[in-house]
């Protein structure tokens, strides 16, 4: 009988520490499937963030470096410049990438650094216990915005894809979601495309994945997925913010 579904080779067969209902596991799988599809496991180097995915190096069967908080794009740059034939990706959360690591992500993007960034946006600091993130929605309650995010005093969420789309450097920017099977398929295609573009030497690619955090949102897993669909997506519209054609098709 033909095997139609298997454990990705690029994932190590280890139980993760992620909470029940968290979508990190799905996103890990999508990344591993992209690595398998492109046949790049032997030359891939991942960069783990500080945040819930800090132990990502335990879950992928590829070389990994664990970066300081927010510095993954700089670390990825160092690896990529030494081994241009390696496929280098960072896997970062919203606090890591859009708060403490804002300088690193902006400058890696504007350099057109030929790396891939998987940006997991769940609008909250997960690992540290549910504090306000740069992507926390207006009115959203967190442990450091217990009365709800008050835009009058702490300002507004940052839309990373839209922000990076103002730069000439990036080759590919897309926001996806993993709240249902149809969107998971689309997210997988986007992640695969981001890696394929790096393999083709097209430059900086980032896929923002809207992700759930049932634990820190205080919701059941099913409620959390519904929350992505009904509340996150209206604020963070899905779609392609920079298509590779815009960079590669100079004569179009």
């Amino acid at each position, binding site marked *: 009988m033909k095997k139609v579904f298997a454990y990705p080779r690029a994932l190590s067969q280890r139980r993760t520490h992620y909470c029940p209902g968290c979508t990190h596991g799905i996103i890990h799988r999508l990344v591993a499937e992209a690595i398998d599809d492109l046949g790049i496991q032997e030359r891939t180097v991942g960069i783990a963030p500080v945040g819930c995915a800090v132990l990502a190096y335990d879950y992928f069967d590829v070389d990994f*470096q*664990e*970066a*300081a908080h927010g*510095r993954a794009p700089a*670390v990825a740059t*160092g690896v990529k410049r*030494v*081994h241009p034939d*390696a496929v280098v990706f960072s896997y970062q959360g919203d606090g890591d990438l859009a708060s403490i690591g804002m300088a690193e992500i902006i400058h890696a993007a504007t350099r057109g650094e030929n790396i891939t960034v998987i940006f997991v946006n769940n609008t909250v600091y997960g690992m540290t216990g549910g504090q306000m993130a740069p992507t926390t929605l207006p009115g959203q309650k967190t442990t450091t915005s217990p009365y709800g995010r008050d835009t009058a005093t702490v300002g507004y969420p940052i839309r990373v894809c839209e922000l990076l789309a103002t730069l000439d450097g990036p080759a590919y920017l897309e926001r996806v979601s993993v709240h249902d099977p149809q969107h998971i398929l689309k997210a997988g295609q986007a992640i695969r495309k981001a890696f394929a573009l790096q393999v083709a030497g097209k430059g900086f690619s980032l896929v923002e994945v809207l992700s759930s955090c049932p634990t820190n949102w205080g919701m059941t897993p099913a409620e959390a997925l519904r929350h992505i669909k009904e509340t996150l997506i209206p604020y963070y519209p899905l779609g392609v913010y920079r298509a590779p054609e815009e960079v590669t098709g100079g004569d179009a």
Partner: protein
Amino acid sequence: MERVMMKGNEALAEGAIRAGCRYFFGYPITPQNEIPEYMARRMPEVGGVFLQAESEVSAINMVYGAGGAGARVLTSSSSPGISLKQEGISYLAGAQVPCVIVNVARGGPGLGGLNPSQADYFQATKGGGHGDYRLLVYAPGNAQEMVDLIGLAFDKAEAYRNPVMILTDAIMGQMMEPVVLPPLRTVAPDQPWATTGKRGRSKPNIINSLGLVGEDLERINRELQAKYARMAASEVRYEADGVEEADLVVVAYGTTSRVARSAIARLRQEKKKVGLLRPITLWPFPQQILAELATAGKRFLVVEMSAGQLVEDVILGVNDREKVAFFGKLNGTVPTVREVYDRIRSLLSEGGEG
């Protein structure tokens, strides 16, 4: 081999390239700009990478990535910039990533000034960032040592899988002297522990410094301390000039050792018995020779451009506070030969030999 006149900063940069360094990540700050500017010109000629980072913080993390990928990698900065790099240096030490960091020190604290200073001694030798770690720290005494010690620094960084610092200052960096350069080396980035992609290895290579389980972190720290003990036992370097017959030994490194040498030469013409002990490694520190000289009845004068940092290590080595005198200039001016000469003369007369 030919002798060429070079600024200290440029001698150091060319010395790094000759030693096989092909990756430089840095950020502008005075008085070290000759190093990144030299690298920006020179790296493309040797197939290397020069990249100006968006900050010192990013530069040191690019160093982490490149060093963890197995390359000989360099960054340079000056005091305020070195402070910004401390987070990264702690991670480099924790993850045991080899690299070389140059501090062309200037006066502090805060924004300070552009004049030479030795007030970053504590930061370089006692930690600087968080956690229990040590850097191997070299202090060049002339442009030739800028070349020689940077080459040695890369070898030692790889041998111990540890960051190595070159601590120098604005005078040493800006002064021109003749140097002999070694032949150009090429060193492939292919360390067995490096993150290159698995490329046929059965297990992934991981570069990290996380130890969530207490016992694991303690084991990692024990391994680090054992490594530092090996470094302390094997890597001490110093220059001892006339210390055996001396009544008074001046202890100084880098710029102040040059001032002290001139003062000592004048005193020797007057038949005064004065020696110079110049630490070349600031960590590990040459404690043993100090202990031996103290036992032999010598007295000591520490000359440094700080409020008193090196002097603490000298007191520890001598183990007798009464035998150690201190002459410090505070972050901005350099001791003159006359000042050091006068200080030595007065110490010798206090001791009855004047």
